């Protein structure tokens, strides 16, 4: 295990100036970033970590990354065409997500935030279930127990406490499941997240905090979010904190696999800070030109997590058909998803009374009837 506890003070003169990282590169705070594959797809030797995935497994992983990106494009398109209220692109973060989730067992519980399209697809969630949220059809409804994939959480950070509690339940069961919870660099500022780190440490809970540090919380760069990086923060709560190149599938996988093994063996929580970049806008409602530079975007475009794996796979002799078939599969999936999204119709509002309490109260039954009667009068018009 790599020690990541070095702390080099980054005290600046006037913190209110919030200087952006010079060129949007990795922060120069002395914390090591684990990398196994460079931006060109070349393998990098690391003293502690080594690739854990076979070429076949990488191809599988790449497939999900690729399909997720295809759906991501479709999401953005649908939003532009007025078919979705909003879309929050995962583009650029596929390696962080798929590297992490492939390091888990299918029965290990995952608590996403709201950007984990790729992870969700890996777990077999129909992407329509996500797109329909953004179409205003449902909030977040899928079979959490079957998929071991939690609900999207739109209240930043709130899910980390629940993930920790779930992991405490795993300990109570005496089971060897592991829990993975996703959060962003911005989320680390919420008090609830610090409480989650502390509970996880105190109860020695088998939970991995995956911070996808995509350099921004909407418009605020990490320099305006914290002085102590998430990876460094872990130590202060009594758990290992590892920083990894989040655009490097192999490195994320190796780091999370090690954390999962430790948790399973009773070694408690780990925080993994995956350094990545949100290539798209925060959501389709956002305008990144207001707060980040063209150069920075180009720099990170050159670190695309898909390109890197594609190169590596080609180096490993993956045939062209693999890629062309995948492209076709992606288009077909997108077409299918689009068609099903456009066909979605919401439940009537009165059906939602079923979900307020386990059994509706008399007042709810009464109100429902009133609303039904009222809506019926409207239909008449």
């Amino acid at each position, binding site marked *: 295990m790599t020690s990541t506890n070095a702390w080099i003070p980054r005290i600046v003169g006037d913190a209110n100036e919030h200087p952006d990282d010079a060129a949007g590169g990795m922060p120069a705070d002395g914390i090591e970033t684990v990398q196994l594959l460079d931006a060109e797809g070349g393998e990098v030797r690391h003293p502690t970590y080594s690739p854990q995935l076979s070429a076949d497994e990488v191809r599988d992983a790449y497939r999900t990354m690729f399909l997720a990106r295809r759906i991501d494009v479709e999401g953005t398109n649908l939003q532009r065409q007025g078919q979705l209220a909003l879309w929050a692109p995962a583009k650029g973060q596929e390696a962080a997500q798929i590297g992490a989730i492939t390091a888990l067992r299918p029965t290990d519980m995952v608590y996403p935030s709201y950007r984990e399209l790729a992870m969700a697809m890996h777990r077999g969630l129909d992407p329509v279930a996500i797109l329909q949220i953004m179409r205003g059809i449902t909030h977040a409804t899928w079979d959490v127990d079957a998929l071991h994939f939690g609900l999207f959480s739109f*209240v930043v950070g709130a899910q980390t406490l629940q993930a920790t509690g779930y*992991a405490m339940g795993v300990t109570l069961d005496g089971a060897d499941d592991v829990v993975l919870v996703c959060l962003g660099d911005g989320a680390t500022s919420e008090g609830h997240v610090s409480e*989650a780190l*502390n509970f996880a440490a*105190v109860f020695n809970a088998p939970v991995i905090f995956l911070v996808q540090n995509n350099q921004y919380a909407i418009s605020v760069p990490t320099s305006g979010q914290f002085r102590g990086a998430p990876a460094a923060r872990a130590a202060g709560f009594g758990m290992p904190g590892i920083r990894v190149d989040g655009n490097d599938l192999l490195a994320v996988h190796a780091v999370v696999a090690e954390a999962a093994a430790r948790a399973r063996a009773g070694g408690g929580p780990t925080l993994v800070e995956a350094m990545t970049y949100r290539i798209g806008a925060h959501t389709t409602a956002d305008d990144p030109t207001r707060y980040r530079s063209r150069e920075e975007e180009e720099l990170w475009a050159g670190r695309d997590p898909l390109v890197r794996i594609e190169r590596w796979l080609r180096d490993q002799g993956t045939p062209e058909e693999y890629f062309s078939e995948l492209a076709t599969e992606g288009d077909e999936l997108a077409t299918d998803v689009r068609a099903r999204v456009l066909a979605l119709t919401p439940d009537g509002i009165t059906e939602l009374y079923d979900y307020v*309490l386990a059994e509706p109260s*008399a007042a709810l039954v009464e109100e429902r009837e009133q609303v039904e009667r009222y809506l019926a009068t409207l239909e008449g018009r």
Partner: protein
Amino acid sequence: MVQLSMAKAITAGLSRAMDRNDHVVTIGQDIGKLGGVFRITDGLQERFGHKRVMDSPLAEAGIVGTALGMAQRGYVPVCEIQFDGFVFPAFDQIINQASRLRFRSQGQVTAPIVIRLPYGGNVGSIEHHGESPEAYFTPTPGLRIVSPSTPADAYELIQQAIDSPDPVIVLEPKRLYHSLKGEVDLDAPPSGELDRARVVRLGSEITLIGYGPMVSTLLSAAKVLADEGHSAEVVDLRSIAPIDWATVETSARKTGRVIVAHEAPRTSGVGAELAARIQEHCFYALESPVLRVTGLDMPYPPSRVETDYVPSVDRVLQTVDRALAY
């Protein structure tokens, strides 16, 4: 039947629920060795072990948030919040999470947790230790809120809350913890529904509605009224959310006069919803407006003057006079 204080009745109910279901666990500040600052969990850690009776770090959001996670793993966590005034750091986890997980997931994820919250004043303590925060929770669909008024009721309600598939806040009238004793049948299974009000005294001229610590005040007032020749009906809500409107409205229609009492300030308190609904549903039956006897519209005062803040029998009687004068 045994004679128990309200505190001991809650301990007994909690302990019985933990006996019946080994997935019931409890978490909170100082609930282990200390048995909680009110000793409600006294002896439970010895009996059920450190795993099921968990001392938590000092963080209310952490308590409720991790309880939700444990519930998602199949446990039934009972959280103890140490005092009324310290529940607010957990507010997001209660309002945005616990109360709506079922709704937002269309039943895929539920939140069968219990939050025990000692509340109420006239306990001679310092700031934040005598408050009645129920009005901060009642605007929340999906959240159940109950409050017992007797040891027997406390014994039953805590068990029903634990059995409930919904998140339930149990407001425990801390003034009565050790001062109120009563008969409790420890073998009785929790019966009836969680959200049923109870007519605790029959009467014909006026209805006095309250819950938790106010019920005994209302009963005392009703007694004085009886001596003065007036017949007051007293309704113990038990469930503050949802409210058992059938019982409330039946009584209101019968007597034609209603007074609601609570310790929380008047503005936007539970009394507002009761008055609003009763005047709507019983408009023609009312002989006088629904009146409220409540805490004052100021933060909870220093304890030397708290008896002027918390509704007293006198204030109830004065308000009854007003109602009867219409």
